[in-house]
């Protein structure tokens, strides 16, 4: 199968992942263990883009502002629109990152790391390594959360518990 064909036929995986992340963060379960690295907390923050899953694919709903109070975004989700992009905040310990995650390619837009303290003029390599470490830290954490989602999605628990709870939360958005 060609790459673009594969991306198109499996894009529901990224869309379900974003919907699940939203559900987790809104129901107080947005904290995920990272083993020895502690835990990561994720929550939706601001911009969210929803799109029809089947027909009317050109129709997009873009909601800005406080996502937790965005009735329009929840209503669109309840109306069978899929989350295609969301601005996410991620925190590990005292550090906080923000980015827009795209459901189709898992690309990152407007990726912001915590403030770096190294000076590029005095120590260019120091700046590079600090920034690299911060980028990698967030990506590893998000990979761990994605991994949890996939393992859950492939388990019997998905159909038995997680999906009914997720659908119930989605319906409450109407």
């Amino acid at each position, binding site marked *: 199968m060609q790459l673009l064909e594969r991306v198109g036929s499996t*894009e529901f995986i*990224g869309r379900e992942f974003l919907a699940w992340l939203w559900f987790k963060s809104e129901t107080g379960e947005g904290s995920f263990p990272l083993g020895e690295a502690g835990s990561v907390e994720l929550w939706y923050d601001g911009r969210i883009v929803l799109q029809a*899953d089947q027909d009317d694919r050109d129709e997009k709903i873009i909601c800005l502002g406080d996502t937790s109070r965005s009735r329009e975004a929840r209503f669109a989700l309840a109306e069978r629109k899929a989350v295609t992009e969301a601005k996410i905040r991620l925190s590990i310990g005292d550090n906080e990152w923000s980015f827009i995650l795209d459901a189709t390619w*898992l690309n990152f837009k407007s990726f912001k*790391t915590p403030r770096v303290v190294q000076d590029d003029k005095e120590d260019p390599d120091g700046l*590079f390594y600090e920034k690299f470490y911060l*980028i990698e830290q967030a990506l590893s954490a998000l990979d761990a959360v994605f*991994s949890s989602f996939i*393992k859950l999605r*492939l388990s019997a628990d998905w159909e038995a518990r997680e999906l009914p709870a997720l659908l119930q939360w989605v319906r409450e958005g109407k």
Partner: protein
Amino acid sequence: MGLIFGSGSFARYRVEGPLPEDYLEQFPERISRFTFRNIDEASEQERSAGWVNIMDMFDNRLSAMEYLKEPCIALSWRVDVRKVPSKALKRYCREAEEKIKESEGLEFLSKKRRLEIKESVQEKLLKRVIPSSQTYDMIWNLHAATVIFGSVSNNLCDEFAEFFMQCFGLHLKPIFPYYAAFEVVLKEGMDPALVDSLRPSLWEVE
């Protein structure tokens, strides 16, 4: 502003195939063949792309292997483009056509002749255009076999993957949800066919 100096957008890739054992000997030569070269002002060249120092986009010498930042290779992909603005091209073409019609006493010019005039005007104007420069950071984690590339434009990402292949002889595979799920399953020792058996669940059960 690239990934190192500010915020930015990026796509992630998995590098397919093993890292050559002699990469420290092999890569400097490969990278130097693909460093950025300025567009020759006298030429008709419209575009140039190649590697520059990730910390300084005007440094394309990379003589001290500044890009080797263990466990990474970190470079910026610089793309210079010079393009004659379409309205300016139209204006100068019209002026050139009028001049020829007047000097040769013609009422109309053939399509072929107008095309020749356009090409000649384009060539002349191109030499006056200052190229615009963009850089896109690339961080290759050699241990993890991952690359992050500082753009999410599909066309640019495709072009970059091709450039990377030409430079290093290694394929880049985008880490999109299906592929990421596949990697999770492999890492967990589960059956890879499980990922192919996945069907949309969120709206299908209602």
